[in-house]
């Protein structure tokens, strides 16, 4: 039987070094040995992703590496997540996410989605090329706390402004996250968004910081 520390280290290293098989094996062993799945997710998989974020910030990792790390993380998450009791995350939060109409790019969107998946949120993924009204309808239908939209092109970014206006008119408490290459802090402020990330990698970096904060929160 492996110790908890050994398994956490395997999960973490497996994510950082994009070793899907190592992650799967460690995740399964953690379940077999009776360790708490949520702890394995947060202090193993998510901790590994935090290292990945640092490597990205230091220009040691780039998007291809991050995507492979994300695959490794999902390999572990698929095994561990079904064993986490629904109320154990203490969050019970929902997010509507999608790439805006006219935009079929979804790498950044999928990386941000991963962050919410890790955190145990219920994710309503609308996919890509999503008509503007669909974001509003889905938020109303699910009463989600967060709406996250991405646009890779200036030409589609403007649609975000309309969605924010429509959502905030109906429910001012919804938090809006924007992401994508043309989105700057100025644009996010101007459109009335609550957060932003300017690239797929940056989305990961920002998302990972949020995971880091979540891990700290759960330790309290």
């Amino acid at each position, binding site marked *: 039987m492996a110790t908890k520390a050994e398994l956490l280290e395997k999960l973490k290293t497996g994510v950082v070094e994009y070793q899907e098989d190592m992650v799967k094996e460690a995740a399964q062993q953690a379940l077999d040995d009776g360790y708490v799945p949520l702890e394995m997710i947060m202090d193993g998989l998510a901790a590994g992703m935090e290292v990945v974020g640092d490597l990205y910030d230091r220009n040691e990792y780039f998007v291809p590496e991050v995507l492979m790390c994300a695959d490794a993380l999902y390999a572990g998450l698929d095994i561990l997540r079904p064993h986490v009791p629904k109320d154990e995350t203490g969050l019970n939060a929902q997010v509507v996410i999608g790439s805006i109409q006219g935009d079929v790019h979804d790498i950044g969107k999928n990386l941000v989605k991963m962050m919410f998946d890790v955190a145990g949120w219920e994710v309503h993924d609308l996919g890509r090329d999503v008509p503007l009204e669909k974001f509003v309808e889905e938020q109303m239908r699910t009463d989600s706390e967060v709406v996250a939209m991405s646009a890779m092109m200036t*030409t589609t970014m403007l649609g975000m402004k309309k969605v924010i206006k429509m959502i905030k008119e109906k429910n001012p408490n919804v938090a809006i996250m924007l992401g994508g290459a043309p989105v700057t802090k100025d644009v996010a402020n101007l459109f009335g968004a609550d957060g932003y990330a300017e690239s797929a990698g940056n989305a990961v970096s920002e998302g990972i910081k949020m995971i880091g904060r979540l891990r700290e929160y759960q330790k309290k």
Partner: protein
Amino acid sequence: MSELSAKERVERVFRREPVDTMPFFSGMGMVLRPAIKELGYKFPQVHRDPEKLARAAILSSKMFGFDSVVVPFDMTCESQAIGNTISIYEDSEDTLYPTIPEKMWKSMDDVNIPSDIADRWPISMIYEAIKIAKKEAPEYPVGAWQLGPFTQAGQVLELDILLKGIFKQKAQVEATLDKLSDMCIAIGQKCQEAGADYITLREMGTGTDLLSPRTWKDVIQPRMRRILAAWKSPKILHICGATNLIIEMMNDCGADAISVDIKNNLAESREKLGQNTLLFGNFDVFALPCKEETTVEEAIQGIKTNIDGGVDAVWPGCDLWPDIKEANMKAIVETTRTYGKKPSPALGRL
């Protein structure tokens, strides 16, 4: 010296000869809403009709005093010619460019470029549009462009297949990029045969916010060199996003000029490239001409900063976004003319 025509000015830029003032031109789309409106077209209609395409490009340049006419505007012609269905957003009143909602090739093994690709519609429509633009606006240089193989791969395959494949299936990635490079060369050559006065290789999605400099050198640079070597001059290499870490490699691909977007630090690029390289771009196509809150004065200041940063032409760092504020756009071009009378790093003045 009397004022040069747009065509003379741009030709002199590429020959490194002194010009009267800095040109305002681009290697990427420059179609603007006011021109489309005046022609009585709707935005989705202009992308697949060579006459509308050419006329929208010409009138955009004439209305705002640009130094070039550029076709096409959208990036889906090749993917459609290969057999993918595209969304043209016919009923939308918003400015939505055509997209490819589903790609028929699901893996790199599926990539099989038809041998007659360069002659297939709608690619052939681009050549027609170039010919029309040359005939109807002989005073303008006509620019054409091609997506580089990595960026084009994202139009025919899911990009994450390629990104992950760089490590896991490198030989297949290289083979895929080679096939797409062949296509890019063939279409670019046909654009030049049709009369394009200059051509831009847009390998947009390979900045270092996506790929490492090592991957760029190993996987991207050899293809840039091969494509550019197969095209006649003038030819420009453009990359979006973070480019400072690869700017010297970009300059070592055989292009006559380098184009970057707003994420490039121009001062750093100049230091690395020296004073003799033609460097374009770094002009924010949203903040200056489009953003509702940007005043004319701010737009003027933005262009002055761009010129002072060390560019040799005011050249949008991306496609111009069609919904511009007319007063800002006119002030931007006017400032280029007046403030650009002083020499730029690589170009003297008459």
